[in-house]
């Protein structure tokens, strides 16, 4: 009997140990150094909600940045993963929290806006619900094809071909950035791109490498390795300027197709209503962490381009993105 109890206790112990490891998020208090709470901010751990699974690109990017933010703030900054609903499980939770400066979240585009712009979902939240902190990463969209595809050697070939033939493109989700970009092209240049929706960039790449889908719509971060190894032909970057990671790839505008840009960006925000002073502390800490050279180098190695925007510039960029989605409302049946 004693034995069995021991086994049971052993199991319980392991359970608590592991759960402790996985979600040691909320309670970690940092001793307040002699001052009453409220006078010094921050005086306890700050929680960052990441609306994507642990181990994904967003999560790894956030966890890396947080080690630098921690140094600036002097308190633990802990990531809590709340995946689901294209990010909105986490964001709804964020907006339900007290705006006390101790809960912030990673927000990313275009999921953030499509989540409240889609009339079928009818969310009451919008950009006004957030206090923005800073933009961290901007990952421009690219158009690429299989290296053995003789039909396409330039983005002009692709667009001219797609004007008279239905052409399949990869997309990592309905009204994701890839899908929106292909619709913008359809809208502007009368192309017939048909998006094949899948579960993620890995699947997109497989589909194009295997020749199952004609054109790869992805982000710079997804294709740098393949580009360096010459496994695919990257034909254009959908940004105002060339990417440092793909120096010899022209922009769409350079190739004569102006007016279509696409990227996904990741930044940080708090729920509306955080004290101005606290926001100032957070914004300064994030600015220093994002501008940290070592941090930027790690991001670059994973194929991501750090693009610091302060909260005002960030708001501007997000509003511009909203406008871009409004342009294609008809094509989305919204």
């Amino acid at each position, binding site marked *: 009997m004693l034995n069995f*109890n021991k086994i049971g206790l052993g199991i319980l112990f392991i359970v608590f140990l592991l759960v402790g490891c996985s979600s040691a998020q909320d309670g970690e208090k940092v001793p307040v150094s002699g001052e009453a709470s409220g006078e010094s901010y921050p005086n306890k751990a700050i929680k960052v909600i990441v609306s994507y699974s*642990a181990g994904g690109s967003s999560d790894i990017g956030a966890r890396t940045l947080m080690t630098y933010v921690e140094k600036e703030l002097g308190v633990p900054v802990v990531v809590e993963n*709340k995946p689901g609903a*294209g990010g909105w499980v986490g964001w709804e939770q964020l907006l339900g929290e007290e705006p006390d400066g101790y809960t912030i979240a990673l927000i990313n585009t275009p999921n953030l806006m499509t989540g409240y712009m889609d009339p079928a979902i009818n969310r009451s939240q919008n950009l006004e619900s957030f206090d923005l902190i800073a933009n961290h990463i901007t990952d421009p969209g690219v158009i690429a094809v299989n290296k053995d595809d003789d039909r396409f050697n330039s983005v002009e070939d692709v667009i001219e071909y797609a004007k008279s033939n239905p052409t399949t493109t990869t997309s990592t989700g309905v009204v994701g950035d890839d899908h929106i970009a292909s619709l913008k092209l359809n809208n502007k240049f009368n192309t017939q791109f048909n998006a094949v929706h*899948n579960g993620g960039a890995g699947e997109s790449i497989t589909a194009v490498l295997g*020749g199952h889908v004609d054109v790869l719509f992805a982000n710079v971060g997804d294709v740098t390795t393949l580009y360096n190894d010459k*496994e695919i032909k990257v034909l254009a970057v959908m940004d105002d300027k060339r990417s440092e990671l793909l120096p010899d790839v022209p922009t769409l505008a350079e190739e004569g197709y102006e007016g279509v840009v696409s990227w996904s960006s990741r930044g940080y925000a708090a729920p509306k209503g955080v004290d101005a002073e606290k926001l100032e502390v957070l914004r300064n800490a994030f600015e220093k962490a994002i501008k940290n050279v070592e941090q930027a180098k790690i991001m670059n190695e994973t194929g991501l381009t750090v693009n610091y925007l302060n909260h005002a510039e960030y708001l501007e960029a997000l509003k511009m993105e909203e406008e871009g989605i409004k342009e294609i409302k008809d094509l989305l049946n919204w």
Partner: protein
Amino acid sequence: METFQFLINGFGEALTWTNLFYCFVGVSFGMFIGVLPGLGPTAGTAILLPLTFSLEPISAIIMLSGIYYGSMYGGTITSVLINTPGEAASLVTCFDGHPLAKQGRAGVALGVSAIGSFIGGCVAILGLVLLGPTLSKFALNFGPPEFFALVFMGMSLLIGLMGKSLIKGLIAALFGLMIAFIGIDQSTGIMRFTFGQTNLASGIDFICVAMGLYGLSELFISAEERMSKKAEKPAKIDSLFPRKGEWRPTLNSIGRGSVLGFLIGLIPGTNSVIPTVLSYSLEKKVAKDPSRFGKGALEGVAGPETANNAYSGGALIPLFTLGIPSSPTIAVLLGALIMHGLTPGPTLFQKEPDFVWAIIASLFIGNAILLILNLPLANVWAKITMVPFKVLFPVIIMIIIVGTYSLNNSLYDVGIMFIFGIIGYLLKKVDIPLAPIILAFVLGKILESTLIQSLTIFNGNILGFFTRPISGTILTISIIAIIITALPAFKRRNLVNEDVEM
């Protein structure tokens, strides 16, 4: 032969004391994580990823691969002992593993799994060494239509798992498909059956369904039985090894499982359920007496467990050679490689041979450590079945709740898990088999998305499937198989299928 030279150098690198230590730590830690339902390989590797940042790249990846392997095996332990699959890959192990445990043969089930996993892992590593780069190119021929065909075949094999009545089996399978529909539709972005709940938007998680339907309902049933009856005397624990006559068929299934798992691992985008389901069905097809399946057939544990491990080895080929992660756990490993400054891709073998071969060698060592750890431990684990129910019941319930919660840090998931526990209990009462529900649930999502993807590619022409050699062949075989199995049933109006009893 040059590759063998590299492999030997790799062993030299991996067998340093430090690396051996990290491998050991990874495997043991992984096993404990795997034993907790809910914390599967993906969560395990992801959570421990930050711990490896301070290590040398080789040590870090060795430790992470150890966690991966270890937690896969840990999932098997809970499947066998408490009928609760910790992750999708060990679901099939429940079918025969748990009946074996009830007969007091948990040790054998675990022993055979450990041996099978070891052999499967080794075969996959050999395959990786010999054929890796060549095969990975071929695997790219699998696009959405071929996936659809493969999953369709998996679904058609479900008929074999329908239980005593075809009608009840179909009800179960349709129920499984129905829950697969919940959430945002991948191809249109429309919310289906979510009733405005954001928490339902990304669908119901496999873990919630599996823990509820299997783990919790099993507890309810046992609670009912054992509280009304006098506690039955726990069966005596048998040895770790199969009985005399069982060796041959078991080893044969291990052989088949190794090849099958490896081949499926090569195909990017498959998940680990597919090789286990295919292997289980294959074993049942070739067995002399298929009626033993579901009642504790050793082959039903050996085949899928081997396939599962061979699959994880095979899955490293697309990762190393193409930089394509074929499962969520592999995606975490990919993240780890990148974090440590290594970019997987066709040139990884040329640019970083020391690194790649050290990892491959360490996989082999990890498998060996797993075997050495588990053969003696299997009996210790198996003793859990002898723990009195009143002690075990609260512990298992706690593990299930904590495991489900830790999945997404969400109490909502725990609630859903409880609902499925009650559904599972009711279904068991009316003899509706649970296996088709959960398999249809897992495969249904892939079936739907690959169908829509294929139809987009074919411009809506459904005959397109038959214009491609691989998908055409697989689909034709499946359709013929369905007709052959189902025809007599419709003639007799009810199919008595001596079968998996849950």
